[in-house]
């Protein structure tokens, strides 16, 4: 089951660049929450703070607290452990090129020491079914490389790979921006189904996509969160002038 996320006074830097400033936010469990905003507004950096991937970049730094479930991820737990609970899907599909489809999905488990074949088989099948890829790849699971799939299939493979470690939260950093419309709609359908089991945070600069998949939407601008509310409210009656200007296409 998904868990909620409580962000308090979050600040993040790249060297001297103060990329994220004083973010306070409550992300509800088992819902899809969209983060929108123009390029460079810090929305990607923000989600990378939610699984401590931000700090893997040399010179990067974070302050503030992020509580996921009942754990302060910057205090109570090691980065590798939080990343097993908080899965991530990246903007560009990034399957492991030398691994088969099966091994790609099983990678997170195998590399963390699970080796029971039956359990792995079961998890790989379930994950691929959950990511709506099973029917397309079930005959070539161990014969084909993950890199041999189409872009849309690769992205669903990456989703399956993230789901296989059974996370509580799924972070999606513009998961459909490199995909064609058909693949995009498949990913969006998937988000709809997945939020029953996971808390989903999706970064997008496609506002229609946010409107389609998310119950809550946050608008980011210049490293700050301008407004956070129900998606309906953000897109029909935003409280902040800047939000309105952005969603009506006056800038960005």
């Amino acid at each position: 089951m998904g868990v909620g996320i409580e962000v308090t006074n979050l600040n993040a830097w790249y060297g001297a660049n103060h990329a994220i400033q004083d973010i306070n936010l409550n992300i509800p469990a088992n819902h899809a929450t969209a983060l929108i905003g123009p390029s460079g507004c810090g929305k990607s950096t923000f989600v990378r703070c939610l699984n401590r991937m931000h700090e893997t970049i040399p010179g990067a730094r974070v302050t503030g607290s992020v509580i996921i479930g009942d754990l302060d991820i910057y205090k109570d737990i090691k980065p590798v452990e939080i990343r097993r609970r908080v899965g991530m899907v990246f903007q560009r599909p990034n399957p492991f090129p030398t691994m088969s489809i099966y091994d790609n999905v099983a990678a997170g488990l195998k590399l963390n020491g699970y080796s029971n074949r039956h359990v792995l088989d079961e998890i790989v099948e379930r994950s691929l079914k959950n990511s709506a890829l099973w029917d397309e790849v079930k005959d070539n699971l161990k014969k084909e490389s993950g890199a041999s799939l189409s872009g849309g299939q690769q992205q669903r493979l990456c989703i399956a790979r993230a789901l296989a470690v059974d996370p509580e939260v799924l972070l999606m950093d513009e998961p459909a921006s490199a995909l064609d419309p058909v693949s995009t709609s498949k990913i969006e359908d998937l988000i709809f189904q997945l939020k029953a089991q996971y808390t989903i945070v999706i970064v997008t600069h496609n506002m229609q996509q946010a409107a389609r998949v998310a119950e809550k939407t946050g608008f980011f601008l210049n490293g700050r969160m301008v407004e956070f509310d129900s998606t309906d409210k953000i897109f029909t009656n935003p409280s902040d002038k800047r939000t309105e200007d952005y969603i009506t296409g006056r800038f960005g």
Partner: protein
Amino acid sequence: MRARIRALTDGAATGLAVLATVLVVAPLVAIFAYLIYKGASSLSWAFFVETPKPVGEVGGGMANAILGSAILLGVGSLIGVPVGIAGGIFLAEFGRGTKLANAVRFTADVLNGVPSIVMGIAVYSLIVVPQGHFSAFSGGVALGIMMVPTVCRTTEEMLLMVPNSVREAALALGVPNWRSVLAITLKTASPGIITGCMLAFARVAGETAPLIFTAFGNVGWNTRLNEPMAALPLQIYVYALSPYDDWHRLAWAGSLVLIVLIVLAVSLVRYVTSRGVLKGAS
């Protein structure tokens, strides 16, 4: 008119490319052809199963030198490949931008430029002198040290070519960094790293100078690492400099065998490592 000029330019460029290709391939073909011409007639069953005959007796072979080369290269690879790969991993994955990494990289580049005879003398004073006698082990060490810089730098280059998104994918799954490096990044880069190892192997397989003061050579059988051992390049060197026609013929045959064995060894490794590569893997 413009179309004709374009066609001419295109033709000229293609012609130059073909010419360059021929120039690159020609020396290799020429050497190989000349070796076959000079050496093939002296090849016989005896060459592969007999040890050298004393001066004055006709015949004999280089069986001990072939075996010796295999053993020396085996010892060399056991030292050079792991050390080189470990160094490359450090340079690309853990030491990026550190002073130590810069020092290691600089040392590797300098080591690459050290003449092989100097390497022989260095190992001579480090191992042979303290031990008091020549040995196959010291020869293997000399070859191994010569392999390190090539293996190290190609490993680094190949690891750096692995896209960062692959590293991030592994980290985001909660895989510890060291494990991600070994199981994901290194594996992704492995075709290039294997090529680097093969290059280093082929290069030292023909080295004579580092063996003169270390493995020394041996006219009889020896499989013990702490005794002097024969090697094909050494044997070729000694035979080619000798005043006897029969030895000259054996030297030619030995050169041919050396090149063929290197080609076979490299092909074998390529074949073995290319099996099990998946459809569509990149």
